[in-house]
């Protein structure tokens, strides 16, 4: 094998599967943060999010991997927003949640 190894389809699918798993685990932190707020709607949305992220279909396509990376970035932004518990922070978190759900829907439509 040469110095540079080109990823085959199986490697790409595995890479995507790992990223999906990482994103699903990140939502656990969000669930804990949501528990600190009084907003039951937010708590419900986060628990649904965990489910939809866990069962994403991995793909060897580069653009799907890019989507999963964006989903991961949005989860991180949500984590930052949910550290604060005031009303403005909760509103911001809800907006980010909508963006995240849109990303997941777009991603699934491309498969």
């Amino acid at each position, binding site marked *: 094998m040469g110095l540079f190894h080109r990823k085959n389809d199986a490697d790409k699918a595995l890479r995507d599967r790992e990223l999906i798993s990482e994103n699903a685990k990140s939502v656990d932190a969000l669930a804990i943060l949501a528990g600190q707020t009084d907003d039951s709607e937010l708590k419900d949305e986060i628990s649904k999010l965990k489910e939809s992220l866990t069962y994403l279909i991995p793909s060897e396509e580069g653009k799907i991997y890019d989507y999963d*990376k964006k989903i*991961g970035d949005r989860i*991180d932004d949500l*984590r*930052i927003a949910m*550290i604060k518990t005031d009303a403005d922070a909760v509103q911001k978190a809800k907006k980010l949640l909508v963006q995240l759900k849109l990303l997941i829907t777009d991603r699934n439509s491309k498969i």
Partner: protein
Amino acid sequence: MGLFKSKYDKLSREEVVDAICKLEQEAQEIEDGLVTKQKQIDELMEKGKAERSKEVKLFYAKKINSLKADREQSVQRAMYLMYNIRLLQKLKSSIDDNQFFKNTAKTSLGNLLADQKGLAKFLNKTLGTRTSAEDVLTSADETFRAVEDAYEKNESIYGMNERDDELLAMFETEEQVDAEQEMFSGSAGKHAEKDE
């Protein structure tokens, strides 16, 4: 770009996010602490006002001043943390920008536009297609005109013969007479009106 990556090239978004989360958590704890301290100060102030003993008043006063000093320190720390968080947010935005431009350039349309020669070739081809289509229409139009110009009117059908000419002369005469009669009757009517 050099062979070795700088610290910023190796920096991942996740690391920056973790750092921001940690600082935000600390800032939130300080903020909660400030609220608690303020409540304590307010309570002690009330107690101090209500207290009669001078020693106890002094005790409350010292405690309040100590809490105020702590509060001041916490405020300074919170301001420092806020500033730090702001810079890290900027760093996170830069990482996002970098990724955004990389991804946008990677898309197939971005690649197509980068090929200037290919683009010029395609545009010239499109122009050629358009010009050919227009030429087809203008040629057709010229053909129409050429055929129409070549046509000669059939004088036997559409032209004037002797008998037609005689009739036309008669029509013109009739028209003249009618016109004169109208003029005459019109002026006679006006005179009749004047007399009345």
